[in-house]
């Protein structure tokens, strides 16, 4: 379970939001919406551990019983997905996935097999040695999500992950992401400004709820 307790973030005397508390269960997708500039991305950056130094934050972040907000990015086990796929351009498609695969699976051969299996599962069999730059937008988005999931994160943070895809692709990829999250039972926070991105029956939180009345 992902838990934010009593979070306040401010920037140069100005409070972005105050007293934000939120719990996300395993396999649940909570959507955060708000107009641009409302601090959605700042919230995500704080959770990742990459808050810009000009911001100050109080509050705690918990993954089950582990307090995360004091840990460096690499110790938080937060999986990320942005609107840009951010595949590493100097590695092949398969190497990108192998980079995420946990180290407990040893041996180049076994690792490669696992990566090829993953690629086949998402309809990209035979793409192991391809240059990521030669993939279509939809293909890159799928590889990017699988890379995040292969690292076995304890929580997922999705920052407008569908906004750069065209309408048809968007619907397909959205369904693909939700299906994968459901299967792996990961608590997920989705940031979007598009109401169509909200999963059916999912909880929606408007960030402005913490902005004026509660300050």
């Amino acid at each position, binding site marked *: 379970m992902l838990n934010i307790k009593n979070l306040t973030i401010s920037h140069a005397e100005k409070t972005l939001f105050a007293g934000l508390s939120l719990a996300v269960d395993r396999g649940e997708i909570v959507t955060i919406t708000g107009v641009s500039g409302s601090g959605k991305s700042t919230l995500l950056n704080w959770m*990742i*551990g*990459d808050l810009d*130094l000009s911001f100050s934050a109080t509050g705690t972040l918990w993954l089950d019983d582990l307090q995360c907000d004091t840990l*460096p*990015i*690499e*110790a*938080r*086990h*937060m*999986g*990320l997905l*942005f609107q*840009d796929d*951010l595949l*590493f*351009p*100097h*590695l092949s498609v398969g*190497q990108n996935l*192998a*980079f*995420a*695969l*946990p*180290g*407990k*699976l*040893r041996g*180049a051969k076994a*690792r*490669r097999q696992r990566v090829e299996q993953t690629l086949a599962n998402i309809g990209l069999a035979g793409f192991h040695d391809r240059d990521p730059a030669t993939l279509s937008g939809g293909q890159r988005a799928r590889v990017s999500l699988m*890379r*995040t999931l292969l*690292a076995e*994160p304890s929580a997922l943070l999705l920052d407008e992950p569908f906004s750069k895809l065209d309408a048809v692709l968007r619907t397909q990829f959205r369904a693909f992401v939700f299906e994968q999250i459901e299967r792996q039972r990961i608590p997920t926070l989705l940031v979007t400004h598009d109401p169509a991105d909200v999963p059916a029956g999912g909880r929606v939180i408007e960030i402005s709820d913490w902005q004026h009345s509660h300050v």
Partner: protein
Amino acid sequence: MAQTLRLALERALPQFPYRRVRLTWQWLAALPVLLIFGPLLPGLYWALSPAIEPLVWQRLWLDAQWPQALRSTLISSFLGTVLACGMSALLATLHYPGRLWMSLHKRLPLLLSVPHAAFAVGLFFLIAPSGWLARAIALFAQWVIPPDWVTVQDAYGFSLALALAIKESWFLLWVLAAVLGEQAISRQMVMARSLGYNRTQAWLHILWPQLLPRLKWPVMAVLAYGLSVVDMAIILGPSTPPTLAVLIWRWLTDPDPALQARGSAASLILLIVLLACVWGVHGLGNLLKQHQPYPGGQRKPTANGRGLPLHTPLFGTGYAVVAVLLLWSVAQTWFFPALLPDAVSLVSWQLAEWEPFWTTLWLAVAASVLCLPSVLIWLEWGPKRLNALLYLPLIAPALPLVAGQYATLLHLHLDGTAIALVWSHLLWVLPYMVLTLIGPYRTFDSRLMISARALGYSPWRACLAVKWPTLIRPILATLAVGFAVSVAQYLPTLFAGGGRFVTVTTEAVALSAGGNRRVLAVQALLQIVLPMAAFGLAAFASRWLGRQRRGLR
């Protein structure tokens, strides 16, 4: 939308051969640049053709000074480059991303504006046997006379290597900071870390493999500089024999044609060494790429070591250099073990020779102001494919180029004139200015120009009324860079000026052979003051403009 608008515009123009006009424009735009680069080609032929004779090479081979000169040149340039790369890479790996990296980044421009010659003089005052460092040790070791050690002008060129390493590591850090400022790169760091890798691992597996190919040319520029540096080598390098670059410079300026030919041949050797390195680095890069192991997925715990104050000596040296120059310039008497002057006075400043200062000032203003329109016209209409050619003076050893310039000037009977002097500086001022402005020029929002043209402005008037005024802040910075580059020039001033023009740079180097540290310190400080004033002025004007129009970047 931009595409549609542009097409509509092109269609709206009267029916004339648009393509041919554009081609003519390209060549017209390249004209100022051709004027700067063109005369160099016959000059290079005249200067380097004496080296075709096999006998010249034989004589060079038998020259008594040349093996040792080559040795100290190779040691100083390679060691300097390797250390500079190592230090900047270590600092980046340890501190990026973080608060300390940002503060390092902010302090870099100040250090970068210290010219090479002034830095060498200051470093000499620091590390010489009677320098500040020895005085600090003397406090504890109870020395009363300077130790009998060779800490500067050593036969192997180690002190020169140290100077190059420190000075160039600032430059490489600055290049690294520019690349790391790109969002695509900084977000990959976050992505790699979110997958569980610590910062060092992310650097090793993700950032370095991508950054190294991009850093290849800046590093080659550092190496080329070290191979052919003369001003720093005279101040800090060995003297009998000097480094190869200094030897070449002496040969080239010798009245004896046989020695001039030997100088041409030896300057070709510098070029060959550089080309061999470019080729070697290229091969090494390919080898590394082929032998990349399959990602093993081993995550290491967060490393500690970020607290190491490794940057302190590197940045501290820069401040100490300026401080010791300031102290010497006001010192009346300053005997050995004393850490501070025994008596201070402004006599050295009152008696200072100001002519080099004014010469440097008008020369640098002329060079940067003349270059600016060429740079703007080139960036707007010039053939973009040829940008790489412009950068050649930055990555080639300066000596053959300067010799070529000089040969041209001799043939035109222009050596020793002010025009020749300004022209000789442009060859280095122009590429640095293009390099500074090209980034902001590329990120300029082209829709602004399309809007202006849609309002009926011609391309030329749209540039004058919209594009260049919008880019005024980067243009000011570019002018300051051009000014600073001109101030730091040593070899072109000596050759093209024919000894008739003395700048603060040539004066500081000439004074370094004498024993008067006070006079030397004053000239070195004047050399530092000029570029700093230019950068300060540009920053001030830029801030003021920024306050008037907050949309200007």
